[in-house]
């Protein structure tokens, strides 16, 4: 029984793109919503993301990519999480991601993709409602 369970979220930028405006703004909004946000910064490989998620025992992984490398990197993260038996972690993505790719990504286990213009409130709400309590 938890007496003061806090939602812990890893916010990561996989790949090489340096546009972290969205990631930082989301990190800030989650903090302001009372969550503990672990921010890893730029240039994360899938291996680094999964390792950090495990050590930090997060409930959620949020990743943002604007470079178009999502189809290479997101599924890799899911694969590694499964290998670590950690695929109970809620995984969400954001960035410039075409509709067809979203379908594909959801098939491989990404729970939700938030496109440009998603209100911060929606992201907070989604996480609150879907974290494994």
């Amino acid at each position: 029984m938890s007496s003061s369970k806090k939602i812990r979220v890893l916010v990561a930028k996989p790949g090489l793109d340096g546009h972290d405006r969205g990631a930082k703004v989301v990190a800030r909004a989650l903090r302001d919503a009372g969550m503990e946000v672990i921010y890893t910064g730029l240039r994360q490989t899938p291996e680094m993301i999964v390792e950090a998620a495990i050590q930090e025992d997060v409930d959620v992984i949020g990743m943002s990519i604007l470079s178009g490398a999502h189809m290479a990197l997101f599924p890799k993260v899911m694969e590694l999480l499964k290998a670590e038996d950690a695929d109970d972690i809620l995984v969400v993505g954001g960035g410039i991601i075409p509709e067809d790719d979203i379908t594909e990504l959801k098939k491989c286990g990404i729970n939700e993709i938030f496109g440009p213009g998603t209100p911060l409130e929606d992201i907070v709400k989604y996480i609150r409602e879907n974290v494994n309590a």
Partner: protein
Amino acid sequence: MNEKKEIKDALKDWENTTLSETITKYPERKEEFYTISEIPLKQIYTPLDIKEKDYMADLGFPGEFPFTRGVQPTMYRGRFWTMRQYSGFATAKESNQRFRFLLDQGQTGLSVAFDLPTQIGYDSDHLLSQGEVGKVGVAIDSLADMEVLFDRIPLDKVSTSMTINAPAAILLAMYIAVAEKQGVSMDKLRGTIQNDILKEYVARGTYIFPPGPSMRLITDTFKFCSENMPRWNTISISGYHIREAGSTAVQEVAFTLADGIAYVQAAIDAGLDVDSFASRLSFFFGSHSDFFEEIAKFRAARRLWARIMKERFHAKDEQSCRMRFHTQTAGCTLTSQQPDNNVVRVTLQALQAVLGGTQSLHTNSRDEALSLPTRESVQIALRTQQIIAFETGAGDTIDPLAGSYFIETLTDEIEQRAMEYIEQIDSMGGAPAAIEKGFIQREIHESAYAFQRAVDEESRIVVGVNRFKVDEEQEFDYLRIDPASETSQITQLLYMKGSREITDVVEALHRIKKVAESDANLMPALIDAVKVYATLGEICQVLRDVFGEYRAPDIL
């Protein structure tokens, strides 16, 4: 004097009677109106607002100090701005085809986008390059790719802008080497390298080395170009990415000019005479959605830079005080919802840039919030510029909004507020020190967060996003990069590596190491190395070993 008093009294009257009566009955849409930079706006502006203005000192004439009205005497009456669309994707071969298509379409300058591994100095076969090869631009591993990229493009005839920063000196070396193979000597080359590392630390994220050695690479290119490439723009000091990262217009001007000051100071400290390089500095701004503030921003930036160069750096040549700039419409204002609306946004933003006196312009394509643009979208974007140029008459007289009570007031406000920021940054020891402290990053982040909150709370309306929404199925035809192009790029790289003279490469890399450890200019050693097909990744690795790598401060 009398006339001013008359207006003043009449204004008071109007406010107290006509206006206040109406407002009592029909309140205005909002209690207070602000620009994006939070400059408060009045109902109207009158001659009273610009009564302090000294026409000659503050505005002057086009082509003359302080260049408020434009940097050329004839502006667009002489020649339109350069219509330059940033492009380039996947492989050098495909990019080359796109370039030749754009030149056929009437584009007048080339603009090269590189993929992220190239921008961060990794070859396509590097572990971190996985999934990124050819994604946001063309992959360049060695001179071999550069030869394909510019195949059948006469480099003495076009001007080429390369969006490259941390490894800018190496890409410039490759460009020089390709031109030489075409029989074009480097003094004939026209173009720009972005070469602006400071904004990479604060906004764009494609840095490699720490600030010290990065600034040295930049001053090396300044020096080399001032001696060998008189027509080359050695840097494009960029506010665009600062704006895209979430800054306001005032911050964009302030932080960009603060970066500019740091570069000029570094070059002077490296022993260069200010007038030997300052005329080759160029700038790059965004054109966002606040119509008048943006126009005023361009004018304010131009005047402020002129004053800084003259008063702070004692430039003697007026050419050193001219701020020439490229503009791109703001990518962050594009919406994925109802993407065709973006054509309208881009049109207005492009018009702002023209009214603000830009030297060249990139118009975004409507589908860029969804993916890389298709050929059709790129064409509409280019046509937008052509319509403004050829149909609207917007370029037929110079600086047409000058003298507007409102535009002049806004221009003053922006200049003054930007100057206050610059003074604050000076007090911290200049832009590099302010970046190290995370000050600039934090200021930008605060504005980005405030903007997003305003949109979420609907105090700022974005059509199709938080109002006037429709249920839409995305049936957009977008461009995809074939994942096979990554494999083919890597195969070619491996083949190239196998067929070059390896002892030459080792020797050239060794020489780079020696020069990097000394104070000598790196450019000649870089040119020699690319000519023997040392790869970008190999060269950057040598420099990483000598210079170290930059790690961002935690600013959240």
